[in-house]
């Protein structure tokens, strides 16, 4: 065999090996990128599912708070009409009253006193209010227990998610984690 042919064969072999090596490296990188993207898209899907019902819930809370505010305003207005004395509910009036009380200033017309004083308890309903307080305390304790349980569940979820992320970082476990939520559903799409 002529040396020129040998050199040609060697050059061709080097070229083929270089091309194959680069293509294999690119394929491996793209495979890793695809695995990461699948996990990320699953997490985004889970976030979307989690955040979907937030709007109506916040609307409900806003409506309830607005209703409560109107309720208090109407109640205070009715009380003021009944007592015949104007009640200043503004922040300025309350602040003035606080300053007057603290520094011994005069409060000639009694403005703001009704707003800063403790709310009156109607006679005859103390028992009812006491029962309501007990019921509210029970509800608060139950809600606290629920919140504590939810926190435990959330902490467990954090730990599980961290484990999944750590497993995904492990090169041996090169498959996407289904624990980040919605992955199976995303794959079915």
């Amino acid at each position: 065999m002529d040396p020129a042919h040998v050199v040609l064969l060697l050059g061709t072999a080097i070229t083929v090996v270089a091309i194959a090596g680069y293509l294999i490296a690119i394929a491996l990188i793209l495979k890793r990128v695809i695995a990461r993207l699948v996990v990320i898209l699953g997490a985004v899907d889970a976030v979307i599912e989690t955040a979907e019902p937030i709007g109506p819930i916040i609307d409900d809370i806003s409506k309830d708070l607005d209703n409560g505010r109107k309720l208090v305003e109407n109640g205070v207005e009715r009380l003021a009409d009944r007592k015949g004395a104007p009640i200043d509910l503004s922040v300025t009036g309350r602040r003035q009253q606080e300053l007057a009380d603290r520094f011994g200033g005069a409060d000639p017309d009694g403005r703001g006193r009704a707003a800063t004083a403790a709310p009156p308890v109607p006679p005859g309903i103390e028992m009812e209010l006491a029962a309501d307080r007990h019921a509210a305390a029970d509800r608060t304790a139950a809600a606290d227990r629920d919140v504590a349980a939810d926190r435990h569940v959330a902490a467990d979820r954090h730990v599980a998610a961290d484990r999944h992320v750590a497993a995904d970082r492990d090169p041996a476990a090169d498959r996407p984690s289904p624990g980040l939520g919605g992955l199976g559903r995303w794959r079915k799409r």
Partner: protein
Amino acid sequence: MTLLWIGNLVFLAVVIPAVVIILRRVLSPAIEIGNYADDIMEHGAQFAPHLSALSELATTRELVRQVNADLERYVRALDRMP
């Protein structure tokens, strides 16, 4: 034979470096994409567990409703005051 040697020289001196340069220009963006994907995986995909507190919004809504109901009862009781 001389032409074959000239072809070999051109092949070794021009074609193989050109192939290597082109492949490197393909490989370096792929490596960058892989690093970005790792970064996104490390930092971006972990915000899903942090949204678990959103499930407590339902509890907040229930508590606000209860407060509203109690407030309504309190105002009605105030109305009944002599």
